[in-house]
């Protein structure tokens, strides 16, 4: 006989879980007591805040493809997970969140620290459970993992009343449940796709996070090369295609490249792989790829025709579909088209001649990139610094970019970086943050210090909420309402106060030596990068606009 908490531990082990992120409390005391017994097999990472734990589970999952796990107590512990769960939901990240709750007999009575977390998280989980009978616990846990990783991945929450975690039950070991296989694509849809491909003069591949989550980068590359098709991606797709490749056009959308956005405008066939035409990609849906047939390939049927109507819908696992297409297509050239569209690629040069000048964020990013290997994992927060990173860092491997795309969660980065570092102890993890975002969840510095994680945090400190301020510049006549917080935080001292190393870059000439020193330091390092409040993210297509309205200079 085992109690519910021990059953939970056994199930986690059966699912291959070796690390969980969490925060204890009254309703999860039994679970934490079991964690104490299982500490040689399950590493529990204590964060400073449950939001950090949720983002850490997310960073763990994004960087590995495995299911991330976080644990929180009832009431405020559970509600603190909410932003992290919603972030994972919007970006299709498989996590299992485990919350405690009051005993079954106390449910529904507004008991101390009771909250209806399954009700609260219904719209931001793939599915959620409350387990009221310990006999249903083990099947529920396995089912939760299966749902999280099957089809289009996403978060699942399991709410465990306290008495369920102590109730005794006969435990029968179970085997690992893998993801449910997706249906093979319909033959007729493959034929239709091939037919469109055959006749296209100006094809374009636009892919998203689906390529990453289905590990289909190789197949994608093969298709692009065999058919000589230019390629662009949403932010979520970055790392899925080699950025140095001649067919690579860059990111598409609001802050995407001219080449990618023009290509969408002018193509006659758009091959969409695991992407969803969000409003940040297709600002103006009726003007997006206006002359193109659309082949939409996705595991999630509900993405078809949700934002853009497709000519051919291919439901299935991307890796499998692309493989079939690759085997079937002939070699094709669209040289004129490729030349025309790739000639629009631009390289942005930064002026570093004045050593005493204010450093350019792109200069700092390029230096970080040069001083790290292809293996580096880059986390970001949300704002201008995020866009500069995704535009210029040139992420070279799948699962190496951790950024909140769908929800745009400021404060995501530090927790995500922590999760990724635990999942990839041998790899360098870097966080590119902004001063605003960093102030949201900098409490997790304490976690960096406690676990001595060698994460290097670069805070692009423009001293403003730069992205919002940029919009105020462009659309609100420079009325800078609440975007200039006049904070006086000394980030170097702050780092030291938390037990980390603090460094600062305030001049061009300091960029290279300080970045080098930061990577040489060993433990957690925070680098305060003092940049201009006036730097902008360009190019920019105004919301609702098309590539014709692209702003390239400001």
């Amino acid at each position, binding site marked *: 006989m085992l109690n519910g908490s021990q059953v939970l531990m056994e199930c986690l082990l059966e699912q291959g879980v070796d690390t969980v992120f969490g925060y204890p409390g009254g309703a999860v005391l039994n679970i934490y007591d079991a964690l104490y017994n299982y500490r040689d097999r399950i590493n529990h990472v204590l964060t400073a805040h449950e939001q950090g734990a949720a983002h850490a589970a997310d960073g763990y999952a994004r960087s590995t493809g495995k299911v991330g796990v976080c644990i929180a107590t009832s009431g405020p512990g559970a509600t603190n997970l909410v932003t992290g769960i919603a972030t994972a939901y919007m970006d299709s990240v498989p996590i299992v969140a485990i919350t405690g709750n009051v005993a079954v007999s106390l449910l529904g009575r507004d008991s101390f620290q009771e909250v209806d977390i399954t009700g609260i998280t219904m719209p931001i989980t793939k599915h959620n459970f409350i387990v009221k009978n310990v006999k249903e616990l083990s099947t529920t846990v396995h089912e939760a993992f299966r749902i999280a990783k099957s089809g289009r991945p996403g978060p699942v929450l399991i709410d465990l009343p306290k008495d369920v975690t102590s109730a005794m039950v006969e435990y029968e070991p179970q085997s690992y449940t893998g993801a449910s296989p997706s249906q093979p694509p319909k033959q007729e849809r493959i034929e239709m796709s091939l037919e469109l491909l055959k006749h296209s003069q100006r094809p374009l591949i636009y892919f998203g996070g689906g390529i990453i989550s289905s590990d289909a980068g190789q197949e994608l590359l093969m298709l692009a090369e065999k058919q000589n098709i230019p390629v662009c991606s949403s932010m979520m797709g970055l790392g899925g295609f080699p950025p140095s490749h001649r067919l690579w056009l860059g990111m598409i959308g609001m802050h995407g490249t001219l080449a990618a956005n023009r290509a969408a405008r002018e193509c006659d066939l758009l091959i969409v792989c695991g992407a969803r035409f969000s409003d940040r990609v297709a600002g103006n849906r009726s003007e997006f790829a206006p002359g193109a047939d659309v082949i939409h390939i996705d595991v999630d*049927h509900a993405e078809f025709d949700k934002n853009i109507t497709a000519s051919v819908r291919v439901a299935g696992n991307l890796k499998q579909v692309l493989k079939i297409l690759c085997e079937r297509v002939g070699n094709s050239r669209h040289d004129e088209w490729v030349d025309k569209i790739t000639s629009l690629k631009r390289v942005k040069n930064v002026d570093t001649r004045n050593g005493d000048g204010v450093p350019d964020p792109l200069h700092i990013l390029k230096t970080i990139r040069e001083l790290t290997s292809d293996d580096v994992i880059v986390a970001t927060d949300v704002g201008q610094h995020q866009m500069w990173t995704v535009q210029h860092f040139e992420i070279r491997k799948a699962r190496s970019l951790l950024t909140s795309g769908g929800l745009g969660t400021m404060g995501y980065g530090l927790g995500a970086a922590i999760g990724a570092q635990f999942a990839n102890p041998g790899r360098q993890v870097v966080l590119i943050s902004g001063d605003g975002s960093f102030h949201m969840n900098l409490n997790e510095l304490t976690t960096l210090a406690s676990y001595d994680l060698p994460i290097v945090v670069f805070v692009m400190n423009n001293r403003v909420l730069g992205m919002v301020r940029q919009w105020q510049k462009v659309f609100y006549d420079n009325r800078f309402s609440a975007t200039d917080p006049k904070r006086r935080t000394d980030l170097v001292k702050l780092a030291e106060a938390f037990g980390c190393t603090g460094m600062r870059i305030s001049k061009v000439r300091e960029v290279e030596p300080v970045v080098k020193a930061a990577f040489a330091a060993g433990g957690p390092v925070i680098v305060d990068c003092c940049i201009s409040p006036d730097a902008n993210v360009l190019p920019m297509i105004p919301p609702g606009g098309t590539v014709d309205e692209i702003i390239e200079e400001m």
Partner: protein
Amino acid sequence: MGESKAIFSVLAVNHPGVLLRVAGLFSRRGFNIDSIVACSTEKPAFSRLTIVVTGDDATFTQLTRQLLKLEDIIKVKVLEHENCSNSELLLVKVHAAGNKRGPIVKMVQNYGARILDIGDQTITIEMTGQTGEIDDFVEQLERYGILEMARTGINALQQGDLTIHDDEK
């Protein structure tokens, strides 16, 4: 796009919260529910939701796909009003004092409705039928003064021998 009404016949796992999940999906995605009926079925493990929605074909397709993404939803069939068996139940309490009573009773007979309860000043009537007939009946009763009424919303099954358990070809 032409707007029309469709009847969604949805087979779900009989879990607490299914109705909430479905209703939440509708409101979150901006689909309007005209009526929703949730009930048990011939199999205790399943429940059935019958939902009437106004929209265009694209809405109905998107809605079907979104519903099927919910873990608890097993099957979704979109039925059209004209080719399904459907009916709803009306309970209505009308003012029926003195000489009004005769004509009301007559109308009840004409419409195939039934009197459930007679009070000093009122009559409570039950009627089942297609939505249009019920609308008609209610309109007729209005002149006597409707004090309160309750309608169940549409319940529906496929026509012919097919059931929701049969796979689409």
